[in-house]
C-alpha cells in the first residue's frame, strides 16, 4: 500500500511534465489543472526544435560522456591491474595519494581548475569540459578490487608462455573484468551525462552546450512558458529513459555494485 502510493509519487512528476508538454499554452494555465489534455498538440515540440538546437546539445553530451567513459575505463583498468598485481617502488605512496584525494569533490577546486584551463586556452572547448572527468579515483579502486580476485596462477602461466604484461592486460585482465567494466561504464556514463556545474563555467558558446546546459538556458529564456519548457525537458529525458528501460536490470545492478564496493 505504502509502496504503491510511493510509486505514484515517483511517477507523477514525469507524467505531469509529459501532459503539460502536449497542452496548448492556454490550457497549461487553466485552473483546476487537467490530467488529460482536451486538445493535445505537438506544437510545443515543434517550437522547441525551431528555437534551440537540442539535437546538437544531445550530440555534445553524447561525445563528452563517451570520451569520459572510455578514458575512465582505460585508466582505471590499467592502473587497477598494476595496483592489484604488481609490486614496485612507490606503489603505496601513489595509492595513498589517490585514496586521500578520492573524496574531494570538484566543487572545492573548480576555481583554480578554471584558471588552469583558461591558461591552456581551453575555455569553450571539448577538451576543457572533459579534462576533469578523464580519470576517476573511485574507478581505480573499483577495478583494483575486482582484479584482485583474478588468480595469480593464471597470470604466471601466461608469463611463462612469454606473454608481456601488456598482453596479459589485454588478453586476460580485460576479458575477465567484463562485468566490472560494464558496471563502471554505466556509473561513469551517468555521472558524465548529469555533469553540470563545470560545463556551466567553461562553456558559453551555444554550439557547445550540453543537454543539461541547453535545457537550463532554454528554461531561463522561456521562464513562464511551461508547455515549452516541459517539451524541452521531455526531449532531454527521453533518450535516458529509453536506455534505462532497455538495460534496466544491468543499470540498477551496476549502480548498486559500484555504490557498494567503494
Amino acid at each position, binding site marked *: 500500500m505504502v509502496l504503491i502510493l510511493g510509486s505514484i509519487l515517483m511517477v507523477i512528476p514525469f507524467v*505531469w511534465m509529459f501532459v503539460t508538454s502536449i497542452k496548448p499554452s492556454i490550457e497549461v494555465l487553466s485552473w483546476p489543472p487537467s490530467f488529460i489534455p482536451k486538445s493535445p498538440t505537438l506544437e510545443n515540440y515543434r517550437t522547441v526544435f525551431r528555437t534551440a538546437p537540442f539535437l546538437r546539445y544531445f550530440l555534445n553530451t553524447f561525445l563528452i560522456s563517451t570520451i569520459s567513459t572510455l578514458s575512465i575505463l582505460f585508466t582505471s583498468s590499467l592502473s587497477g591491474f598494476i595496483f592489484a598485481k604488481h609490486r614496485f617502488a612507490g606503489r603505496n605512496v601513489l595509492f595513498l595519494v589517490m585514496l586521500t584525494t578520492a573524496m574531494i569533490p570538484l566543487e572545492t577546486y573548480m576555481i583554480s581548475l578554471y584558471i588552469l584551463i583558461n591558461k591552456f586556452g581551453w575555455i569553450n572547448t571539448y577538451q576543457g569540459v572533459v579534462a576533469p572527468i578523464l580519470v576517476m579515483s573511485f574507478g581505480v579502486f573499483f577495478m583494483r578490487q575486482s582484479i584482485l580476485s583474478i588468480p595469480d596462477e593464471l597470470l604466471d602461466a601466461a608469463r611463462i608462455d612469454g606473454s608481456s604484461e601488456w598482453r596479459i592486460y589485454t588478453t586476460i585482465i580485460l576479458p575477465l573484468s567484463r562485468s566490472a567494466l560494464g558496471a563502471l561504464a554505466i556509473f561513469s556514463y551517468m555521472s558524465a551525462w548529469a555533469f553540470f556545474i563545470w560545463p556551466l563555467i567553461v562553456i558559453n558558446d551555444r554550439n557547445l552546450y550540453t543537454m543539461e546546459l541547453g535545457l537550463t538556458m532554454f528554461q531561463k529564456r522561456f521562464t513562464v512558458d511551461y508547455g515549452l519548457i516541459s517539451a524541452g525537458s521531455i526531449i532531454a529525458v527521453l533518450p535516458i529513459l529509453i536506455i534505462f528501460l532497455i538495460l534496466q536490470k544491468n543499470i540498477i545492478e551496476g549502480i548498486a*555494485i559500484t555504490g557498494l564496493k567503494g
Partner: protein
Amino acid sequence: MEGKKKKRKISNLSLFCYVGLLPTMLLYVLFRIIPIFDTLRLSLYSWSVLATKNRFIGFDNFSKLFKDKIFITSLVNTTLFTILVVLFSFVLSLALAIMLNNRKMGRFSAVYQLIYFLPVVTPMVPVAVMWKWIYDPQYGLLNYFLSLFGIPSQAWLIYPNLALYAIVIMSVWKIIGYYMVIFLVGLKNIPKDYYDAASIDGAVEWQVFRYITLPSLRPILLYVLVVATIQTYNVFTQVYVMTSDIQGAPGRLVRVLVYDIYENGFRYFKMGYAAAESVILLLIVLILTVFEFRLIGKED
C-alpha cells in the same frame, strides 16, 4: 648470466608499471592535485582574472568571510539542507528496502525497484525544471493538491523560508531509489539463518530489525551516510535551476555554499575570495571523510 636476466626482467616489470600508471597519474596531478593546492594558495590572495595586480593578503579573505552575512547564511543553509536530505532519504530508503526485501514481494520487487529508480537515472536539470513547475505558486500541481484539502496556495519557491524545504523534498525524491537499491543488496547478503534463529527464539519484528538487520548493515550504512553527506553538501544544480531568479532577493535566504562560490568566483570574479570559501568547503569535506574512516576503521 641467470642473475642478470632476472634483474632485467624485474626492471622491465617496473617499467611497465610506471609507464602504465603515467597517463592516470598525469591527468590526476594536472587536473586535480595541482588545482587543489592552488586553491589553498589562491585563498591567500586578492585575485581576479580581470585585475592586473593580484596581491598576497594573508588570511584577510577568511576574516572577511566570517563577517560576510551571505556566506554565513549559505553555510547555515547548506548544513540544514544536508541534515534534512540525508536524514529523510536514509530513513525512507531503508524502510523501502526492507519492504521490498520481503519474500512475499516476489517479482513485484523488480517492478518497484524500476519505478523508484526512475528519478535516479534522470539528470538533475530536467528534474529540477519539472519540480519548479510543480511548485509554481499560481498554477502548480502541488498547490492544486493542497487546495483539495483546503490548504491555501503557498509561494513555494518565491518565499525563501519555504524554498529550502521545497528543494529538500525534491532532492529526497530524487535520491531515495539509489540508496534503496544499495541497501537492498546489503539486505540480501544477510544470511537467512540469522532470521530463522530469531524467529525460533520468538523475536518480534522490531527486535529483528534492531539486533539483526541494523548491525549487519552497519558498514553499508556508514559508507552511504558519508558519501551522501559529501554529495549533499555540494548541492548546486537544483538550487541554480530552481532559484536563480530569486537569488537577488534581500537576505538571499536560499543561497548554498557552492552557489555562493560560483557567484563570487564567476560573476564578481573575486577568485581569491571564492577560493577561501572553497577551502572552508574542502575542510568540511575532509573532516567528514576522516570521520568516515574513523567509524569504518572501528568496524574492522
